[in-house]
């Protein structure tokens, strides 16, 4: 069990929030410059929450307005936002974009960012913001609800749902028994021109980061090169790969498990299935989609409250039923058609080690994939 600094205590978080507000108000009142004055307008909305709130009220978080930046698409997340609004009594404003774009936007906005909560597609982007000191430490009460392997060890972000990397394959073209035991074996001659991947996709890149942890830098480079030499086909994203595999354009592809289920939900049965690499192979990486609270959040209380709802039964059930992802809190079961999370023989990799995206991008650039 990782130890967490005492600071990450919800009650203290409440008081930090109040301290920051007082500080800001003083700054604005002191005519400390245009920026501070102008930020007073966004700041005023934070005052909807009673400034004299007791620690107990802070613990629950206050109702009010909240600006969320979502790196996950509206299709996947809008239903959960509805739950946040209803259960948390929050008026949420959501700005959508791709995870990378949103992370860059938060970095460029600086401390004036209107965002309070960042919902990200993968741990890498959250890790990046954490490294830049842009995420606030989360209270232990939030962090403890999720298995510690899906939480940042510094307590800066928390997983909301889990997704497994799989090899999606066209069942008319390939028999399950012919599939390889390891991701590494996809360089074999049988798979020449048969595999799709998405080098520009964040999930794929996290997966390569995991490979670097597991196999080492040189072996990963060799593997990538062998895959390229073997005619592995690059697609723009997981969705396009699943479409291509279902259409029989290509036999297999490396994707996240839920894209196939979305395709089935949209268009009915497909001649395709997900294959989970067995025996703790690095191919069966389980990654998360998660969230963090911005350190300069204008609506800290509401952000906490929203996070509380996101890790509650309703939101978690929504992830299980509507996005076919794995819920991360106790007592919520995943989609019955999925293999239980516990049955996926995942490699022994710490998700925080996946934050080194820069190294991965450098490697992918070096072999010519980016």
């Amino acid at each position: 069990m990782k130890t967490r600094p005492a600071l990450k205590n919800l009650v203290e978080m409440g008081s930090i929030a109040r301290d920051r507000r007082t500080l800001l108000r003083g700054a604005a009142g002191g005519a400390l410059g245009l920026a501070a004055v102008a930020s007073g307008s966004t700041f005023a909305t934070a005052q909807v929450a009673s400034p004299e709130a007791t620690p107990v009220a802070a613990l629950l978080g206050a109702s009010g307005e909240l600006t969320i930046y979502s790196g996950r698409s509206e299709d996947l997340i809008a239903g959960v936002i509805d739950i946040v609004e209803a259960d948390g009594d929050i008026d949420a404003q959501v700005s959508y974009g791709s995870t990378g774009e949103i992370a860059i936007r938060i970095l460029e906005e600086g401390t004036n960012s209107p965002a309070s909560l960042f919902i990200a597609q993968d741990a890498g982007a959250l890790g990046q913001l954490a490294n830049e000191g842009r995420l606030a430490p989360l209270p232990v009460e939030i962090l403890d609800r999720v298995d510690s392997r899906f939480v940042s060890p510094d307590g800066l972000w928390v997983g909301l749902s889990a997704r497994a990397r799989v090899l999606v394959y066209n069942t008319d073209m390939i028999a399950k028994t012919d599939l390889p035991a390891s991701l590494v074996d996809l360089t074999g001659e049988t798979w020449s021109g048969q595999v799709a991947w998405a080098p520009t996709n964040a999930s794929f890149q996290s997966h390569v980061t995991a490979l670097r942890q597991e196999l080492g830098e040189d072996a990963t480079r060799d593997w990538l090169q062998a895959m390229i030499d073997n005619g592995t086909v690059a697609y723009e994203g997981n969705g396009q790969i699943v479409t291509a595999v279902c259409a029989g354009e290509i036999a297999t592809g490396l994707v996240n498990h839920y894209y196939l289920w979305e395709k089935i939900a949209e268009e009915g049965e497909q001649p395709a299935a997900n294959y989970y690499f067995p025996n703790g192979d690095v191919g069966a990486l389980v990654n998360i989609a998660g969230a963090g609270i911005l350190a300069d959040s204008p609506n800290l209380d509401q952000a906490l409250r929203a996070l509380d709802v996101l890790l509650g039964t309703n939101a978690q059930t929504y992830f299980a039923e509507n996005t076919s992802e794995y819920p991360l809190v106790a007592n919520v079961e995943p989609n019955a058609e999925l293999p239980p999370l516990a049955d996926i023989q995942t490699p022994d990799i710490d998700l925080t080690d996946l934050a080194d995206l820069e190294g991965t991008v450098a490697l992918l650039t070096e072999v010519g994939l980016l």
Partner: protein
Amino acid sequence: MAIGGKPTGLSYENLSIGSKLDRRFALRFPPMVFLIPALLVAALMLAPIVYLIVRATDSGSAIPDTLIRSRTLVVSWNTALLAASVAVSASLIAVPLAWLTTRTNLANQRFWTIVAALPLVIPSYVGALTIVAAMGPRGIVQGWLETPFGVDRLPSIYGFFGSWWALTLFSYPYVYIGVQAAFRGLDPALEEAGRSLGLGPYRSFFRVVLPQLRPAIAAGALLSALYTVSDFGVVSLMRFDVFTRAIYVQYQSSFDRTAAASLALVLVAFTILILALEWCARGRARQYRVATGAARTVRQVDLGRWKWLGVLYCSLIFLSSVVFPLAVLVYWMMRGSSTGDAVERLWGQAVNSASVSLAAGFVTVALALPTAVLSVRYRSRLTVLLERQAYLGFALPGVAIALAFVYIGARYVPSLYQTVWLLLIGYAVRFLPQALGAERISLLQVNPRLEEASRTLGENVLGTLRRVTLHLVRPGLLAGFGLVSLTVMKELPVTMMLAPIEFETLATGIWQATQTGAYGRAAAPALILIAVSAIPSLILSRRGLDQTA
């Protein structure tokens, strides 16, 4: 026939007097009412460049310089190849089309003239999506061929070929519109003179008509090349490694702002190079009629028994660039099992798209006007510089413009950040060149004597602008307005990053739907977007026809 060599401004005009007058204009210092706004606009255009330089000189890219360099080479080559190919093929499609629809007795000429410009209303990423869906290795076309002919996969269209195909189809109207207008504007007297001097119909076309079209073809080809260089939707779907895609990948996957900014600056330099080539090629020729007498309409060429070929040519282009993407969208909409977005929501998106596009068109045309007037009427080193740097909008990748204004907005003018105002500024910076180009062409066609007369009669600079110039350049203003509005409607990166929170447009609606591969759901906003932009563009081109008729 220069009369005494002394320009009076009232004498019979000819070339030598005209050019002396132009030189005299150059000596006049530009009035402050134009200069100050033009300088402010210039500062806006420079802001993203400053931002990129600041970012590119940050240390801390994880990618070694050597890698960046070798990658930049590949990307530059791909971009150059694609831009040149698209410019050439777009011209080859557009010039015959323009000739058929203006100079021949082609049946339904009016109809073809109007639909020939329609591909402009189809967002290139939607067009590319439909092309991939239909002509991909296992797409719809392959499905048709499988049973009768046993074709189990088509050759891959990804990479250069697909990008070139899609961009040609959706950008040829840039050449067509200009060349078509040039055909209409040609003074038939020159062609008749050529014929009377013994040139046959073919030789007179190549020796008299084509040289006069050259500026229009060059300008159109330049526009389609610039469109290609700045397009992201097509190249990302077709997976062709050009600048916009490389920049996106750096931002998207590694949050590497340094590498991305360096690449973006190389793209800026690259585009400036293209523009410089065009500036060198651009003549200084005057475009307005100097002779007295009215321009007459030209005699139409009788296609005779080749008429069917003309119709076939127009139909093929219309089918592949307009009917085909529409058909695929309708097919998706009918096939998609998900009910799609609620009607009210689509309506809201359509209203947002339309209003923000119209507003952006208005703002951009207004912001471009001072620079246009200065560069045409007060030509000097300074004003030429002002004009040319306005073309930076073409050179800057959309995502860089968006991030620059995110940076400036959030940090320095938070009261504007995530408001429609900053969004409009972002659009104006991105599309200023389109408005400026249209205004310049119009201004060049207006005889400066008319403005002179107004000044002689006691009107001041602003009054002349309002009461004389603006009336005369109305076609240019309208064209710039239309062009900017149509492009804004399709714009994505600036819209995504600068729009107020929860401000949805049709373009962001399409983006949302395609994120998860839900093409069925993308079809409805895409069709509405095409319809909403088609209506004004139809009205514009019909009015254009009526005016020239």
